[in-house]
């Protein structure tokens, strides 16, 4: 805890991220109003005691929508990061541990995916298999794979030449064991930091996909979908755009600050501990 507080950016970033994440989680059990409840009679109400953030064009409670939208955005982005890290990190480690043709294959594969503009291909995937949250997860997740693969390989390569790894080899460890026992723990910090950054990019991508109508579909909602619903009314009711727009901005900033702080904090911890088979 002290260590976290020693890095103010980490503290602020984490607190803000946790705040939004909690807001989203609470929406699983409780929202002030059901998000699908349409009540035309009470539309376009400004913020008030009953509706903290007012109501939208169909009379839905903006605060409830915002809570639920935040959850959708987080879940989609987190699952996409899980896909990216789950496949990308083993690929990167394999490339570093085996080298040779394996490395070549992994690198060409990441080049291949990097060659496509991410959002455009996400749109392609969503068009092919139909719009929806799950498909957004897949589309965004696929583009996280090469990112994690490169980070994992880069981190692992700088460690693979160190003595303790050589010692491991002499002790009879195979490539897989080297990767798992020696390389993975040492690149964990890199992966975690990259994960937070990808999380914020994932939230932006989900918003982008929903905004063009290929992500989350009504009656569920996401921050991007709220933006889309509000955009034709922007000149008349700008507030409806500000709520989801500011939410996205704040979450992304929070995640980025947290990511930065996290890198500093973890590096410092590692240096201080100087443990035998863990290096920075």
């Amino acid at each position, binding site marked *: 805890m002290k260590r976290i507080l020693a890095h103010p950016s980490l503290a602020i970033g984490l607190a803000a991220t946790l705040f939004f994440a909690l807001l989203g989680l609470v929406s699983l059990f409780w929202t002030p109003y059901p998000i*699908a*409840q*349409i009540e035309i*009679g009470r539309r376009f109400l400004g913020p008030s005691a009953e509706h903290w953030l007012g109501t939208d*064009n169909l009379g839905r409670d903006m605060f409830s929508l915002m809570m639920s939208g935040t959850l959708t955005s987080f879940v989609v982005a987190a699952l996409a990061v899980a896909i990216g890290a789950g496949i990308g990190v083993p690929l990167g480690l394999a490339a570093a541990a085996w080298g040779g043709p394996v490395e070549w294959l992994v690198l060409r594969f990441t080049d291949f995916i990097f060659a496509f503009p991410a959002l455009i291909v996400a749109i392609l995937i969503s068009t092919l298999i139909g719009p929806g949250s799950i498909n957004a997860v897949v589309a965004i997740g696929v583009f996280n794979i090469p990112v994690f693969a490169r980070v994992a390989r880069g981190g692992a390569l700088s460690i693979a030449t160190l003595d303790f790894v050589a010692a491991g080899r002499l002790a009879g460890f195979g490539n897989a064991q080297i990767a798992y026992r020696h390389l993975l723990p040492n690149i964990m910090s890199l992966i975690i930091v990259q994960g937070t950054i990808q999380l914020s990019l994932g939230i932006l991508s989900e918003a982008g996909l929903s905004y063009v109508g290929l992500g989350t579909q009504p*009656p569920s909602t996401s921050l991007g979908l709220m933006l889309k619903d509000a*955009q034709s009314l922007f000149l008349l009711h700008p507030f409806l755009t500000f709520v989801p727009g500011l939410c996205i901005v704040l979450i992304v900033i929070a995640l980025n600050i947290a990511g930065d702080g996290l890198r500093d904090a973890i590096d410092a911890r590692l240096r201080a501990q100087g443990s035998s088979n863990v290096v920075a």
Partner: protein
Amino acid sequence: MGNALKAIGLALALSTTLVAAAMAQPTEVRIGVALEPPILDPTAGAAEAIDIVVYQNIFEGLTRIDENGAVQPDLAKSWTISDDNLTYTFQLQDGVTFHDGTSFDAEDVKFTFDRILSPNSTNAHKEFYEPISSVTVIDPLTVEFKLSKPVGMFLFDLGRGDAVIVAPESADNNATDPIGTGPFSFVQWDKGSRVVLEAYGPYWGEPIHLTKATYVFISDTATMTNALLAGDIDGTNNFAAEALGVFEGNPAFNILVGTTEGETLLSTNNKKAPFTDLRVRQAMAHAIDRKAIIDGATYGYGVPIGSHFAPHNPYYVDLTNTYPFDLDAARKLLAEAGFPDGFSATLKLPPLAYARLSGQIIASDFAKIGIKLELINVEWAQWLDDVYTKKDFDLTIISHVEPFDIGNYANPDYYFGYDNPVFQAVIEKLNGTTDDAQRKELAIEAQTILAKDAVNGYLFELPQTGVWNSKLTGMWKNSPIEGLVLRDIRWTE
């Protein structure tokens, strides 16, 4: 010397005034429309988007429908009708040419109707013209139609986009390169973006004011708003009601609020379970809150309907209370039909603001009686293909904009699959009746059957809310037929 200078000065002054006049009086118009037509041949497709571009602009029929919904002579300058209402003889306009330079005569009329009635015709409304037993060319400017039975609205039907006159030389290419006799000729179609029309010099009829018209396809309301505000387009015939407020009180724009022939329906696949069960359809009808939908989707501009008929038509009967909004009655009917806990279904929504908004409101209301609707947003071409052509849908929301189109329900192969011999007999009789009082009685009977059978969810009559540059005049306020007629549009000072 002094005189020469004066003359130059005068010439300069004159030329600047002329330039100013030309600047102030543009003759080109750019119109934003929400949907792009799939093709440009109105005799081969049902989409209103086709008529919006071509009807009375590129193509003309023997008659035309005017702004008030009345039949006017067009390519036929006059006609006589036999006493038994079975023979129509048309005198054609002289000196008419198609845009490719070929001349128009009675042979083209015969060709057009033979093409509509041929077995491999792709006309969307062949049924209107099926009573025609023969088309005979008397001389190049006289043509005679013989009918197998009297048709009450024959002259009106001839004025529809489905019956515009095409030439044998060009008809096959009309889908992409339309050639008609109208005041505008086709220049180019940039797919996904725009269609450009140009005034046709040798046009036979009254001279028109515009020299060029561009239809720009913008389906997104915010983009359309910005295009209007930025002056990228000069107007649109039907703007999303939700954002009309942007233009209210703005002297640079003129808002035209009128009626259309668009019955907006929760179209129901009557051939698919559970919608085959009358009680299920009745339950859905009870669960539709028309007021909320009209306020939410049309911002109060729509007029509620209880059957498939336009409220401003003299034959209209108010059936909106056949199944009033009553969730308890709806639940009871669902339980009787064997769905005490409701069921799940899909609702496919075309990219029109009224459809997307109504869909969310209906889904919210249906959820209260246990019907869980999955909303599927589809693109326009996809809607035409999946829903209209392949009939692959449970429910959809769409406006049927053709005038007097209740006869569609007599066609069991129509996309919502309503097959009721009693109704078909009524329509058969209605089509063959020319006496106005009797026609009204039959039309009311037809409306009532549809309302009672709850064939579709009847929501509202689509309003037409046009937004135009306030210097433009001549646009139609109401839309008594599908189309956006450019004939009278011009710039004023």
